[in-house]
């Protein structure tokens, strides 16, 4: 199984996003670096709009992720409700 990852700038916008990801992906591992927070996960990682909305108390468009995104690895699948990164092998 290969590792996927996603990294964001460390800031107030991304804190609830990172919390949601960790809650929704129990197998994910947090890696905090200077000014950057990276989340590694075996196989796949799912980001759910609803979980983020619960934490920030407003509507969230998953494309807003792009503002604070630094890098990622894996094949992407995105729709209105979730953003998935996966290596299918």
């Amino acid at each position: 199984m290969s590792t996927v990852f996603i990294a964001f700038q460390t800031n107030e916008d991304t804190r609830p996003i990172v919390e949601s990801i960790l809650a929704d992906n129990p197998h994910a591992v947090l890696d905090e670096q200077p000014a950057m927070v990276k989340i590694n996960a075996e196989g796949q990682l799912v980001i759910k709009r609803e979980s983020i909305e619960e934490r920030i108390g407003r509507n969230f468009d998953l494309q807003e992720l792009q503002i604070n995104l630094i890098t990622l690895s894996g094949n992407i699948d995105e729709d209105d409700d979730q953003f998935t990164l996966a290596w299918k092998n």
Partner: protein
Amino acid sequence: MDMKANKKKLGLKEKYAHMTRGLDWQTTYQPMDKVFPQATFEGIKIHDWEKWEDPFRLTMDAYWKYQAEKERKLYAVLDAFAQNNGHLGITDARYLNAVKLFLTGISPLEYVAHRGFAAAGRNFPGVGPRVACLMQSIDEIRHAQTQIHALSNYNKFYEGFHAGAAHQIERIWYLSVPKSFFDDAFSAGPFEWMIAIGFSFEYVLTNLLFVPFMSGAAYNGDMATVTFGFSAQSDEARHMTLGLECIKFMLEQDPDNLPIVQKWIDKWAWRGIRVLTLVGMMMDYMLPKRVMSWKEAWEIYFEQNGGALFNDLAKYGIKVPDCITQCTVDKEHISHQAWCTFYQYAHASAFHTWLPNAEEMDWLSAKYPNTFDKYYRPRYEQWREMADKGERFYNNTLPMLCQVCQIPMVFTEPDDPSKICYRESDYQGEKYHTCSDGCKHIFDDEPEKYIQAWLPVHQIYQGNCWPEGTDPTAEGFDPMAKVLEWYHIENGKDNLDYEGSGDQANFAAWRGAATQNT
């Protein structure tokens, strides 16, 4: 009173279908193959452009909205940085030499990437990649502009920033390495460009460039660079995805595409890795406070992450590039070999160099247990001894350059780190030299392209690198001084050792003034 629209909004997929794919049309005044003349000559066969998938499904309206937000954030920080003397917050003015290398060597590539993606977007008959290339083209010019804006703050205070991103890239010997990398990709066809830049550079290698650079900037208190870096990097996930999508699309369209794509991956992975030598050197030597070693970054971002990627591509028959065996050896050497070169040629460089101090050498020993103490520490100790006696070593002979990657012949044989590695090819009665099996292979495959290389050392010897009107027969003619003048390097200010430089003295004085009342 506002009208409330109750119509249901389009879902992401529908919106993307209408606002991207739905914008395409078939030409009627001219046949499509005349409108897209570059679409076939490389031998890549595409049967159905409709099969192209863009996983981000970003439409132009959303693109502008998010890019505007990124710009607002960036410029707010840059204002704060300038208003608060942010330049005094860095660890040590030595750090700025890494920034000078970035401004002169990397920012111009952003501009070429802008042009290259505009051309690729124009040349692809499919609407999906055309829209994605258009967005990337706009991103890239934004990167060039924001980098130049951000770093212009340093130009008010420090040496070596005055020539900016445009002048020196066309001239200085070591900058021909990144320049020729992008130019050689741009002068290929649109599909090869996508494999060279979109896939090999953006997907396989970009993390090795930006992530350590930006973390390094954060570690060293450089808020300006962190901010433009992260702002640029936020576009990068989209670029990486475009590169990966493009390669999968080519491989799925026709089995005949596989050998062509594999050849390009092998070639551009090697070229990209050669360019990254400069980043390795920056990480291991130029950051006063280090983030991780080049070797560690290579292991995380290339060996592990690249491994996952190539596992995924294996189902199409793609193999890991051959050069990996050599890279596994090289990762313990290249950063040291590069810094040793710049130390010897500090008089001809647009930034300062220095010898690593005792603590830094211990860090290098710990990070490179197999190589540093054995091959490189003795060299630095020797140079330290010479410098202390007032005999600081400068190399006054111009080195031979690799005909392909244009790096001086400073790398060693994969099986013998005490022997310079070089290879020779004959073409039309002339001899051409390359630095490695990887570069020789590329040369032998396309000699007619690479014999045209503008090699800085050859050009100096041919007398093409002096200001106009220079008379080389005049009494007291000093070729090196003239070359520096043509480079726009101010001798004694921009070049030579950091120790004793204006940057060092000014930084100490200003920082002192900022923390004391006298």
